């Protein structure tokens, strides 16, 4: 787990947005002048209340704004030093980006195996290479191995979240965006998801994590941004944010009770 807040020494950041503004037509601007950075190898979280613009930031990074009739109105998005501001979603995936969408969004009518194969679309795996990539992903999420022929729509919420994560890993991403991976899951499953995120990061993938569960997110992040009304309200290391009493009270849950220890059954 990387809790090192200093900029990574090697190479450009996994993600850098500079002055990004985005909105959805008549609905006005959802995100204004947003600059954030995910250094390579780190977990960075994006926190804030509902409607703060977290998902819009994700879409601006992944190129999915257009699908929601949204638009980037200013700023720049770079992945590993490469400008992808106007690039299509597929080009960004090829550049090393993968994402777990809010609400998991597995393909319900496709089998688990087919969901996983679709995650490797840009890699053009052939025969053995596909199985190899899948086995690699399944070492991290072994439970899915027994469910390969099951239709994804019949999985439990927790299993669907695991599948969404596994599917995203199939393209061997260098940067993973995760939008509310703990949403609607039982506390025990949230612990599992957290451990998986840590393992993914330890294997070398940088992560941008959007969470309502601020405590969980901060416990594994090296840096965090607090969004409010589409702007960065505060940013810093988890320690710094937790020490600021106003922020801690308003965004991280009243009081600064210690983070739940890993593996604890709450």
């Amino acid at each position, binding site marked *: 787990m990387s809790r090192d807040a200093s900029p990574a020494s090697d190479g450009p950041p996994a993600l850098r947005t500079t002055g990004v503004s985005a909105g959805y037509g008549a609905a006005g601007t959802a995100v204004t002048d947003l600059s954030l950075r995910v250094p390579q190898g780190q977990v960075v979280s994006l926190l804030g209340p509902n409607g703060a613009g977290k998902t819009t930031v994700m879409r601006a990074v*992944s*190129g*999915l704004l257009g*699908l929601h*009739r949204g638009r980037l109105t200013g700023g720049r998005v770079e992945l590993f030093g490469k400008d992808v501001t106007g690039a*299509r*979603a*597929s080009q*960004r*995936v*090829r550049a090393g980006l*993968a*994402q777990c*969408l809010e*609400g998991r*969004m*597995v*393909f*319900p*009518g*496709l089998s688990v195996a*087919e969901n996983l*194969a*679709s*995650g490797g*679309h*840009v890699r*053009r795996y052939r025969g053995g290479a596909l199985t190899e990539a899948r086995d690699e992903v399944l070492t991290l999420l072994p439970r899915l191995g027994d469910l390969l022929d099951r*239709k994804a*729509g*019949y*999985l439990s*919420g927790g299993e*669907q979240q695991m599948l969404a994560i596994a*599917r*995203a890993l199939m*393209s061997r991403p260098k940067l993973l965006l995760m939008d509310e991976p703990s949403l*609607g899951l039982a506390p025990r499953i949230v612990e599992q998801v957290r451990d998986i995120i840590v393992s993914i990061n330890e294997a070398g993938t940088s992560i941008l994590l959007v969470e309502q569960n601020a405590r969980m997110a901060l416990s594994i992040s090296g840096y965090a941004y607090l969004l409010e009304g589409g702007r960065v309200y505060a940013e810093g290391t988890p320690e710094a944010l937790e020490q600021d009493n106003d922020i801690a009270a308003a965004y991280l849950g009243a009081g600064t009770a210690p983070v739940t220890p890993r593996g604890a059954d709450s």
Partner: protein
Amino acid sequence: MTLFLQLGFQGIALGLVYGLIALGFVIMFKGSHTFNFAHGQFVAIGAYVVLVLLPRMPYVLAFIGAVAITVGLALVVERLLIRGLIGRSVTVVVLATLGISTMLHNAVLMVWGVGSHDSVGPVGAGTTKVGSVVLPNSALATVAVSVVVLAAVAWFFQRTRHGLALRATASSQEAALAQGIDVGRMFALSWALAAFLAVTASIFLASFPRVVSPSIGDLALIAIPAIVIGGMDSLMGAVVGGLVVGLTQVLGSNYLSDIGGGRLHEVLPYVLMLLVLLVRPYGLFGSRSIERV
């Protein structure tokens, strides 16, 4: 019994042709969320292009030429119109395809007139005897080619990377985009595939009344009850629905010829369609959606 077997075979052959057309409808519907009323005109244009090319080249080349031209036309319609309407209401898109249908229909009338032309089927009028059953060669060719084409389509969807990507796109455009699947390209692919199926159907459809006429485009709309019966979002349902409609028409035209001036068989598919809509609105094979939150 012999008559029943002969009619049954004819019904299956006609049903498979409807199945090919219906399958195209369903592929476009799933792939690009568009119910394309102009699909019947793709069938008509396919038949007319074969008609034009046939005197100038071997059959296979004429067919390939017709596929190329019809697929090209489908791609232009998809790119210029359908993709521009992404996110608009279903009604807008459907009305747009109705407009295109009328335009294409009138283009056919302008170029080729209202008259009928000889069939463009790949085989002549001969028959083959199997035991006591006499089967038209055109029906045999229809069944053989349709089965091969349907198997190839099934293989494409189940076994290839692009087939999987198309199914993923049909399931969720957002999730497909997130996997790096180029959804715009998948729209185009689904339209191209549908147009190919339309041309394949057209050469056989033209051998049932044994003529090519502008009404072939309307004839193709019989695929609509087939889709409703089978289920709007089921590829398998499209083929089964096509078979049901084909058999109903052929058997009905013979056994019910005393009722309603012999036209009852033309109504029967729609009666079946309404019955299915009342009892099982998502069709025999359609899904009520198995999503779970």
